[in-house]
């Protein structure tokens, strides 16, 4: 596969703080690359470096050109805190940004594609809801039908249904050959969308790989979390063949498959142990991030609970 962008040993420092510390990565044409990390990890700085809007040490190429020399007709960018002129309507905004390119998409079809209804298309941007505003911003990034799209937290502030419709759009874009580089606070987002994920922590790219591979390698075992103040002995769990870790008002049993849950409930009931709830969790990308960085990821995350039993 041919590389759409490549970065080697990219360093960016602000005084004594290293925002990017020898970051190297490559993204293939048509690939969705997800970059995750908490606030301050360096995600936005890396996007700026890749799009040529900040100067860095190291080597970066986008379609074999330095980012500040690339034909801007070929790239689309959605900066993280982007707010377009607030008194214009979405239709006017698409016409405005489209007017800066050789060829551009028609407002009506583009706004429909990002899920903005026709009524909202003719209201001033400042009167739209947070989710509608972000959809307009995504549409602006798509206005020139770019070959590579940089999206810095594209679904922030969008409701779950809206997020899913944008995810479908991003998947369709990738299927049609557009390369996507997206940063996210949402592990679910990158797990669902990205072909490969990069974990960024304190300016360092800790690892890169397909989400499933990262989870398999670093996510650990599935586990059952029992909310109870009882001890493992009182619950009769010392007899079963699992690893049981007591925590504050919780017992965490590792390596539990869904088929084992009913047996454990029966064991608890037989022992007469009281518990408030049971939650079974598959290992997630978040677990892999924690294992690799030693830091709990505090971004947006849907529950990965596969089964929850309340007593």
């Amino acid at each position, binding site marked *: 596969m041919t590389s759409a962008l490549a970065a080697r040993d990219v360093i960016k420092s602000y005084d004594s703080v290293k925002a990017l510390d020898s970051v190297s990565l490559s993204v293939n044409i048509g690939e969705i690359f997800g970059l995750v990390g908490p606030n301050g990890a360096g995600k936005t700085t890396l996007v*700026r470096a890749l799009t040529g809007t900040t100067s860095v040490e190291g080597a970066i190429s986008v379609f074999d050109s330095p980012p500040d020399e690339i034909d801007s007709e070929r790239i689309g960018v959605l900066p993280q*805190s*982007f707010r377009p002129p607030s008194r214009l309507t979405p239709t006017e905004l698409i016409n*405005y940004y489209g*007017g*800066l*390119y050789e060829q551009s998409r028609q407002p009506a079809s583009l706004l429909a594609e990002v899920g903005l209804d026709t009524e909202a298309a003719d209201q001033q941007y400042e009167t739209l809801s947070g989710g509608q505003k972000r959809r307009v911003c995504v549409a602006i990034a798509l206005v020139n039908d770019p070959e590579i799209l940089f999206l810095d937290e594209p679904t922030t502030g969008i409701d779950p249904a809206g997020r899913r419709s944008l995810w479908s759009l991003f998947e369709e874009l990738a299927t049609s050959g557009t390369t996507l580089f997206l940063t996210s606070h949402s592990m679910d987002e990158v797990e669902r969308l990205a072909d490969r994920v990069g974990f960024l922590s304190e300016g360092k790219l800790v690892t890169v790989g397909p989400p499933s591979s990262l989870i398999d390698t670093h996510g650990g075992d599935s586990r059952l979390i029992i909310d109870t103040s009882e001890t493992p002995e009182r619950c009769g769990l010392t007899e079963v063949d699992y690893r049981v870790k007591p925590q504050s008002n919780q017992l965490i049993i590792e390596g539990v498959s869904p088929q084992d849950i009913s047996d454990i409930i029966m064991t608890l009931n037989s022992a007469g142990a009281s518990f408030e709830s049971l939650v079974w969790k598959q290992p997630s990308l978040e677990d892999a991030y924690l294992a690799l960085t030693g830091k709990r990821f505090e971004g947006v995350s849907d529950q990965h609970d596969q089964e929850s039993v309340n007593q």
Partner: protein
Amino acid sequence: MSTLTRTQAEFIAAWHAFLRRRTAVFFTFFFPAIIVIIFGALIQTQPTGGGLFTEPSGYYIAGYLAVVILFTPLSRVGSTVARHREGSRFEKLATTPLRRMEWLLAQSLVNVLIIGIASVLLLALSIVITDTTLPAISLLLFVPPFVVSGVILFCGVGSIIGRIADSQDGVIAASNALALPLLFLSETFIPPALLPRWFRPLLELSPLTYVVRGIRAVTYTDASTGVIPNLAIVMTLAGGGLLLGALAVPQAE
């Protein structure tokens, strides 16, 4: 895609954005009008004694126009730059084919249009209120180039202020701090003869001086300087202002 079409797209967006800021539209026209009313009608010019101003009313027409030529571009472009920075718009624009010069040119043209309209209204108001007669042909021929060049010059300065100031509040404070001394020390309302002799050479340092002298040469029959030399200076300064202003437009961070 040519410079023309990109500048046109930016111009249309900036024009619509301005028209929908009703408060800004109102005060853009109200501020110079109130200056004319206060200076021209309330204080009045009575060279024989009694009024604050020592010159005939026609002398101050250039000063009235200087108010809009100076204040509006400084504050509008400066605050537009600050607003763009706060909304990461320059970061976005830096990844489009739009060049910094085209952005500033479009903003300048919006200001030229706004201030052109304001100037016409201001001249009409001045004539009505101060009972001044103006040579129509000269007005048509020579006032517009001064207005256009002056506006472009101060749009460039506004861009520099927007780059230096880190917020819209900072832009307003900085543009007022620059504009107020310039307004009163550029042969607008205070004739050089009323200033200390040692200070008079400093008037030559103000770019607004040449705008005022040029417009006065057109609108006031007893003007002491010519049109063409001042126009050449103002146009040169406008070119420099546009260039430096474009360089000051932030690319990203």
